[in-house]
């Protein structure tokens, strides 16, 4: 969890010119798009029913009828992984949404109000930050039972401090700029001023942070499902597939390899996308006028 320490990166460092960062962006975007497409396709088509148990096909090897083989209950691995990508994306989206919806306003208030309120908010953020997502999920699961919702909420809450800090740090810099001061001089109120002048100017930092948080949320969901605190059966989830595979690892290692690979690839995809975006959205290098807001 400590790799979230890329926190108050307000000014991003200069990208190493040209191609490498472009390639990062495109490769990341490609991998992310691939997962999204697979998840969308799984709604209308999968090779087999991912939850259909058929004992005569149990632990069938890869072949023409089952591309990657089946698990101990004879369920098709490809189908399970396709539907599992839905869970992964869903958890990531909701977790990041929770984190942003709470973190951004909280960070904004801290930056605008400063003083004791800022201190209190940031120290509270530190307390939450010290809580790993897994511990949070165990706590929540103890109260509300394990499940996808618990996992999403736990991951979301544990990323609130990240967004609060990033928002605060980036906002402080923009709030010092004279266009914000000028806006106050013609009666633009603090909330409006933030939404109109500060938020568009820190959006690139938030987009990058969201992508990175997404990658980490995927990892956290897999970890929680592995521990049995995340997605519950029979809904397929990559993390739980890993856990179920470990009993059969000596007989059918592919049951662990493929979901593991899926997790690795999706985390890599979102991380690369985040890195690529950071360079591409850097206001010092992008043509500002043509940038999406």
């Amino acid at each position, binding site marked *: 969890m400590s790799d979230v320490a890329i926190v108050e990166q307000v000014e991003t460092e200069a990208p190493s010119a040209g191609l490498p960062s472009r390639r990062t962006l495109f490769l990341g975007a490609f991998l992310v798009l691939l997962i999204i497409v697979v998840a969308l396709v799984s709604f209308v088509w999968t090779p087999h029913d991912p939850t259909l148990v058929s004992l005569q096909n149990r632990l069938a090897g890869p072949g023409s009828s089952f591309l990657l083989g089946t698990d101990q209950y004879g369920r098709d691995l490809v189908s399970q992984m396709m539907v599992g990508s839905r869970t992964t994306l869903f958890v990531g989206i909701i977790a990041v949404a929770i984190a942003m919806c709470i973190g951004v306003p909280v960070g904004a208030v801290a930056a605008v109000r400063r003083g004791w309120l800022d201190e209190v908010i940031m120290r509270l953020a530190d307390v939450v930050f010290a809580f790993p997502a897994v511990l949070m999920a165990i706590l929540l699961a103890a109260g509300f039972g394990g499940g996808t919702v618990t996992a999403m909420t736990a991951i979301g809450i544990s990323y609130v401090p990240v967004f609060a800090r990033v928002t605060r740090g980036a906002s402080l810099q923009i709030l010092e*700029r*004279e*266009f914000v*001061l*000028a*806006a*106050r*001089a*013609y*009666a*633009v*109120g603090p909330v*409006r001023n933030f939404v*109109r*002048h500060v938020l*568009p*100017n820190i959006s690139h930092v938030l987009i990058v942070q969201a992508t990175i948080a997404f990658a980490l949320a995927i990892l956290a969901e897999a970890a929680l499902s592995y521990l049995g605190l995340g997605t519950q059966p029979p809904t397929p989830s990559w993390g739980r597939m890993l856990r179920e595979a470990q009993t059969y690892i000596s007989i059918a290692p592919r049951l662990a390899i493929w979901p593991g690979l899926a997790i690795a690839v999706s985390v890599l995809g979102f991380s690369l996308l985040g890195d690529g975006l950071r360079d591409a959205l850097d*206001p010092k290098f992008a043509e*500002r*006028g043509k940038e999406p*807001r």
Partner: protein
Amino acid sequence: MSRQVPIFEVRDLVRSFRMPRTSVRGGQREVQAVTTVSFEVNRGETLGIVGESGSGKSTLARLLLALDRPTSGEILFEGKSIVGLPEKKLRHLRRQVQIVFQDPMGSLDPRMRVGKIILEPIRSLGIEGDEKARLKELVASVGLDADSVNRYPHEFSGGQRQRIAIARALAPRPRVLIADEPASALDVSVQAQILNLLDDLKARFDFTMMMISHDLSVIHHMCERVLVMHRGEIVEIGPTRQVFETPQHPYTKALLASVPTLDGDLPEAPPETLVEAT
């Protein structure tokens, strides 16, 4: 000049900043940015405020705009106090007093189109009227092309950006324009253009101007009266000509003597005053 209510009246204004403690022992240090300052701004004049950096000029500007609260003292705008008022009661001031900042890069939102930037004060203050016509007039009056409104600030040069900032400041038709070093971040060749533009606009839109500068030739050229600040205090105030020709305070003398001149139209102070001033 006939005696009337001054547009700004400042009495015993103090603004001090508490510095963070640097040691456990010893009290908190206070820095006085503005120290018991009193002056008036007359309707229609151009008042120069001159002083070296750190002399409290910009803090003074922020206080006059009610963007900052004074530690003590009183500011009257058109006869009414603006000190300690909640934002709601400052609407009159917000409409009538506008500012142009030094850095035209920092004073325009890079993510907004120029047209939107210039119209923002009108919309924010809820001023009624034909926006399009107003925008067209403003853009033309500061000497920008009509198609500038669809572009972004970074597409313009420093001088053009300053013109955008001036158009925005004049959008609500303010009675007072505070120009905080409006030309000092620009190329020398552009400085004169901007200053002349301000002079022309002042004649056209009939506002009172406060010109903050550390550049004496700017003040000499633009202002009828000048106020000299040094370490948060006003050391001298009077008609520009009088202050420049017969400076009373040693600091003013030193300031005038330090100006490099080509044609020598500024009086030279005797060298010994330099020593006692600093």
